């Protein structure tokens, strides 16, 4: 079983006065989980399936970088495609989507994304 890794960087603008929450949707009927850590302190904020995870006020996130590593396991025998959507409430862009495909049936694909909050 191979682990394919893709690195991305996304610049995000958060509403300073609003609460920011994150939902990560794993599409194509695949299975996935995410590890979220603060890049400056390497502190792990959350591990697992992410749904409406509260990240704090936009002003608290300004100038910080969140590293999100999402691993997707190919369990769909109809497609090798993997697609992940990161939805940040009260941010622009609100949603960022990445798609790719595993090389072999049953492989894991990792999206390693740095979200810079400006």
């Amino acid at each position, binding site marked *: 079983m191979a682990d394919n890794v893709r690195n991305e960087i996304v610049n995000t603008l958060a509403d300073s006065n609003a609460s920011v929450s994150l939902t990560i*949707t794993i599409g*194509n009927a*695949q299975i996935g989980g995410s590890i979220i850590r603060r890049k400056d302190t390497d502190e792990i904020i959350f591990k*697992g399936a992410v749904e409406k995870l509260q990240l704090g006020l936009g002003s608290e996130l300004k100038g910080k970088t969140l590293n999100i590593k999402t*691993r*997707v396991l190919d*369990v769909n025998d109809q*497609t090798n*495609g993997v697609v992940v959507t990161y939805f940040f409430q009260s941010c622009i862009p609100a949603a960022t989507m990445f798609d790719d495909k595993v090389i072999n049936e049953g492989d894991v694909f990792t999206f390693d994304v740095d979200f810079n909050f400006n």
Partner: protein
Amino acid sequence: MLVIGFTTITAWTQSFNLKPQELSIPTSPGLVLMDKSPASIEKPTNPKALSISVLNLFLGGAVEFTPYWLKNKPKLTFEDYQRKKIPFLQTLAFSVATFRTDTSSTLGGGFRTQFFRCYAKEVTDSILLIKAKLVELLVEDELNTDEISKWKNKLLDLKLKPTFNVELAGAYLGYAGPNKKITPQRSGFWLNVRWSPFKVPFSAVGLFRYTNDIAKRLENGLETSYLDYGLNISYDEEEFNLALEYVYRTDLEAKVHYDRLALVANYQLSDMIIVVASLGKDFAEVNNVLTLIGVKFGLSKEKANL
């Protein structure tokens, strides 16, 4: 495993015209009517690859694709798909094959789909528990690929056995001679209804098939079409399985009926030896009893890589 079969036939007076497994939905309906196997089957997973595969068909080849999955589905989660009772679009697959010679072309096309499926609550709960386990493993600092593979295989085993499902398939075969005009040759339609209770090594499959050999009608004016019904009930344990199969055939043109009944048992004596026994009645009205006892030997467990 390399297998040599050794059988002793104690009574055989008529070869079987139809085996119940022929009533089952074929994997690639568009190819099965051809009586030929393509060297390879292309399975494009995006529109660009599909268009290339279709162009290649003009030179002879085979392609199989599921249109729904040619495009990503970002909002379709694992749970949503698992709970879908009518995955008609998600499982609708088309197969097309062409064979060409200097003077003729044969074209086969078909489709198959799962019209309805449902899982017992215990199965769904087990699937979701395994899913949660896999998510835990995926967010470990280091990936434990052996554990992931183990749980993934358990998940796939459960997913492949809905408690109840209905599948449909259809196929058509055409032939074009030197004048390039396509004439119909054969067509077929299959319907399978399967019931597999959870944690019980038992399953029942209702089988239905309609076939029409159009070429024969065009040759000699005799229409040939059959309506076949079958039922397969099987009991499967790790070393032993038993299957009872019944097929009822109606020749729609001659307006006659036939039936066939067979009991088949397999018992695994060891890793390399399986004993097989069959007892049944063929379609013919006389001299139609078949009994068969055999032993299958495996010579090697190793897989040869070419």
